[in-house]
């Protein structure tokens, strides 16, 4: 009967030696992990518990299902193969150990016998091939295809770590097959065919005969076992550590709304000056980075000027945690230029298979720069203006509602009369001279739809979304206070805004008593609802061929993808998607306060790259946006890329007004 004889051909001394090695491995492993965990505990506390089943659910889909990893085909399948292959082989080894050292040793029976054993052999033999394929893909990718994102900038020495892991895993797989093949070559059991790979290898060795094969078997078994312990021992000290850290990082990921930033650390100055001011979860983030570089590929800051790579930031920060001679975190490890380059578009966070939250870390680091007053003059002026006048334009707050002049009927003052919809207009729509036409058109559409709406006139302040993301937490709090005071005195049911940035912070960050626990709607959502309820009916089918740009703070931050698309389609336009859309939408480059900062040397502005992406679509007439800042960014980009004849940038409301 087929039965597993685990220590065939292994002398007793070797078996004993193996158990001693296992004990040492276990000790080093535990020490290595403890060393890491103790380092995380140097970070500040942060609550990340609760929602046990939800967290287990993400572990299942993301670790065992490899869902995000599989978002990219080649690297996804590559990792999937290695992961599942290795997992099964490791589980098989564990089962064999239980079979031999527990059930057989103590109870005198084996699980791995007969049909079960045959199935066991077949499964391990075939899934081992999965590892071989996966490793082959990995070697091809890293050493032949060599995509830019895998190049180990800024720490060249990490290339050794990558090679080490690949060599180790390749060797463990090949030596495993060889050991099996040699065993089969000597014992030639009648069920050998159920181990197709091992059997094929055995065929190569049979001619050598015994005792050569037996000696070879012993030597290669020894090496195989040594490598296996090598893997375990080095796990806490190499890239392999991600096997431990990533599942933890996924388990402890934030389940708060993406648009709600954590309040700034105020202990020892605002933000993070030294790494111990990061929370333990942020340290775990850095330790979870496998340097896969997906974030770098989607980063608009990286694409435009290569100043910032989220991947490199994680690598540098992780290195910094362990560096012997501590260089200054600010200035030496990360530069202000990198930090200011982030548009907080969240594309990196969205693609990271390890669920790292890069943006929160960048904002924490920026907070320290703001604390030190280190920022460019333009940003300084914008923040001073926001503090004094409540808008970044440095215009009087009394000019905020100037755009309403001459509108009939006049726009209601929500501070004085009750309205259903409180329209939070936002800075750009209120003050930017080139946008007020669209703002007026929005008011006209609202009037035509018979909505009861009003605005806060000069009492509105910048909502503070980008002020917060620049890192100026104190000013953000002041703006929230001022807006909340006014809002709490107004009578209304719903807040509506055209600005995704205001939308995000009003919805996710304003205290419940600030926006009066009222629902917050983006105008695209409101229009979508009105279409659904029949209150908004179009008289014309526009018939334009259009594409739609997802604003980061509407899409990735708040998951509003469908409402604007339904509105576009309701106006009778044909919507053609750009390659990067919905979750993969590409930032215009203005977010996170970038619109207030100086533009450093850029290769291609994100907005220009985006326009070229749209122009490449066949026969697109209109580039539709649903964000006032996008309107200015893309109108500029259409001009600077010389596409004025081919493409026109329109606000969603332009389509609605035309089709009414």
């Amino acid at each position, binding site marked *: 009967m087929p039965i597993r004889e685990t220590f065939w051909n292994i002398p007793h001394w070797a078996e004993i030696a193996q158990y001693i090695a296992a004990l040492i491995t276990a000790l080093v492993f535990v020490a290595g992990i403890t060393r890491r965990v103790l380092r995380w505990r140097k970070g500040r506390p942060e609550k990340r518990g609760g929602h046990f089943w939800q967290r287990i659910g993400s572990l299942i889909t993301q670790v065992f299902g490899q869902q995000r990893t599989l978002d990219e085909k080649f690297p996804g399948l590559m990792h999937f193969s290695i992961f599942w292959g290795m997992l099964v082989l490791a589980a098989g080894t564990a089962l064999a150990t239980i079979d031999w050292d527990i059930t057989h040793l103590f109870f005198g029976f084996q699980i791995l016998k007969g049909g079960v054993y045959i199935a066991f052999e077949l499964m391990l033999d075939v899934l081992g091939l999965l590892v071989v394929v996966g490793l082959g893909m990995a070697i091809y990718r890293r050493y032949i295809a060599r995509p830019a994102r895998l190049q180990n900038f800024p720490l060249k020495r990490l290339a050794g770590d990558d090679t080490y892991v690949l060599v180790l895993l390749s060797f463990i797989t090949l030596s495993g097959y060889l050991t099996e093949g040699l065993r089969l070559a000597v014992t030639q059991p009648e069920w050998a065919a159920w181990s197709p790979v091992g059997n094929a290898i055995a065929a190569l060795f049979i001619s050598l005969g015994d005792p050569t094969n037996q000696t070879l078997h012993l030597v290669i078994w020894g090496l195989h076992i040594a490598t296996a312990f090598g893997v375990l021992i080095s796990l806490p000290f190499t890239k392999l550590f991600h096997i431990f850290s990533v599942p933890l990082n996924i388990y402890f990921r934030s389940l708060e709304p993406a648009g709600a930033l954590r309040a700034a650390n105020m202990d020892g100055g605002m933000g993070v000056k030294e790494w111990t001011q990061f929370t333990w979860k942020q340290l775990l983030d850095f330790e979870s980075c496998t340097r896969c570089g997906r974030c770098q590929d989607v980063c608009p800051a990286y694409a435009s000027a290569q100043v910032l790579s989220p991947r490199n930031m994680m690598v540098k920060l992780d290195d910094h945690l362990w560096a012997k001679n501590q260089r200054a975190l600010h200035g030496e490890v990360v530069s202000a230029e990198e930090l200011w380059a982030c548009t907080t578009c969240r594309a990196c966070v969205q693609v990271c298979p390890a669920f790292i939250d890069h943006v929160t870390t960048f904002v924490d680091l920026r907070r320290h720069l703001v604390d030190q007053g280190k920022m460019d003059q333009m940003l300084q002026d914008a923040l001073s203006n926001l503090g004094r006048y409540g808008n970044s334009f440095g215009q009087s707050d009394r000019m905020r509602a100037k755009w309403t002049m001459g509108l009939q009927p006049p726009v209601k003052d929500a501070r004085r009369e009750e309205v259903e919809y409180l329209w939070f207009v936002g800075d750009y729509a209120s003050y930017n001279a080139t946008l007020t036409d669209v703002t007026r058109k929005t008011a006209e559409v609202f009037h035509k739809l018979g909505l009861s709406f009003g605005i806060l006139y000069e009492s509105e302040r910048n909502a503070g979304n980008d002020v917060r993301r620049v890192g100026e937490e104190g000013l953000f709090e002041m703006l929230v206070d001022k807006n909340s005071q006014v809002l709490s005195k107004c009578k209304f049911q719903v807040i509506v805004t055209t600005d995704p940035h205001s939308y995000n912070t009003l919805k996710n960050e304003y205290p419940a008593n600030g926006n009066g626990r009222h629902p917050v709607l983006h105008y695209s959502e409101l229009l979508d609802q009105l279409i659904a309820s029949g209150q908004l009916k179009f008289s014309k089918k526009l018939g334009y061929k259009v594409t739609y740009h997802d604003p980061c703070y509407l899409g990735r931050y708040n998951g509003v993808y469908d409402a604007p698309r339904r509105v576009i389609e309701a106006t009778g336009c044909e919507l053609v998607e750009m390659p990067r859309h919905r979750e993969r939408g590409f930032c215009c480059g203005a977010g996170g306060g970038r619109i207030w900062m100086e*533009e450093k040397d850029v290769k291609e502005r994100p907005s220009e790259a985006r326009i070229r992406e749209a122009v490449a679509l066949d026969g697109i007439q209109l580039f539709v946006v649903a964000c006032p800042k996008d309107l200015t960014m893309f109108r500029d980009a259409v001009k600077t890329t010389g596409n004025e004849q081919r493409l026109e940038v329109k606000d969603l409301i332009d389509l609605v007004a035309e089709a009414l």
Partner: protein
Amino acid sequence: MSQDIFVVVEHLRGQVADVSYALLAGARHLSKTSNGEVVAVLLGHNAQGLASNLAANRVLYVDHPALAEFTSDAYQIVLTSLIQEHAPRAVLFGHSSIGMDLASVLSAKLNIPVVNSCRTFTEEGKFVSQICGGKIMAEGDLPSPALVTMIPGGYKAEEGQTTQAPPLTTVAAPALDNLRVAVKQYIEPDTSDVDISKETMLVSVGRGIQNKDNIELANELAEALGCAVSASRPVVDQGWLPTTRLVGKSGKHVKPKVYFALGISGAPEHVEGMGESEVIVAVNTDPNAPIFNIAKYGTTLDMFDLLPVLIEKVKQAK
């Protein structure tokens, strides 16, 4: 008190400042209301030659080695004694680095009222001062006696010049001991760059240019037009252009045929350096910007909308 109008002549490095000639023209205008004489007050060392083209009825000249360079200390000692002795109806100073070091000090010392930022005098001899960044004019009776600092723009320098040397009286200097202020050295403006005061047209940028990169737009336009780029103070303070390109009170004074002002609000300090340009064309999104008060042509278009189109059209027109 006499009815004479004193004008304190400003000179540096052997040259009378333009503002002094304009002051003489202003003093002439004011003297009509008081029937006094215009008296140029010249302080210096071996500097009587500078008096030759001053359009004044007479010149009071004080010579002393300590007056070789302008120092507020020595000047105010000398002026104190002159004013006490001659009791003029008014003393005019430039609203400048020299005049502003003196007028208020003398006002406090001699207990004579001082009027700042006077641009013109009315027919009745009232002062008209320009304040609040050029947004407000304040008019009032000129106190008697009075000290006045005058901003440029009200009177033309040419009208304060003459070919006939006025009579000159040399007055002995009072004791100039224990002086607390001394000039150590002068640092000349950088001359390696283009001299914007010699250009027939200038494309000039102000705060509205927003950032360093946008300077490139101005450069491109200037290149197409074959002229130079100049700037107002905020742009130079940011380091976006060198100080050699600064137009204004502390920069160059320019008089090109065309001064094309982009995003410049027109604060008095800037206007002082370019107000005499033949034609000023201003681009500024703020329709209330004071620059439109001195510009001949203007537009409130956003310069970032206008410039790319304009650059193309200028290139085509050549």
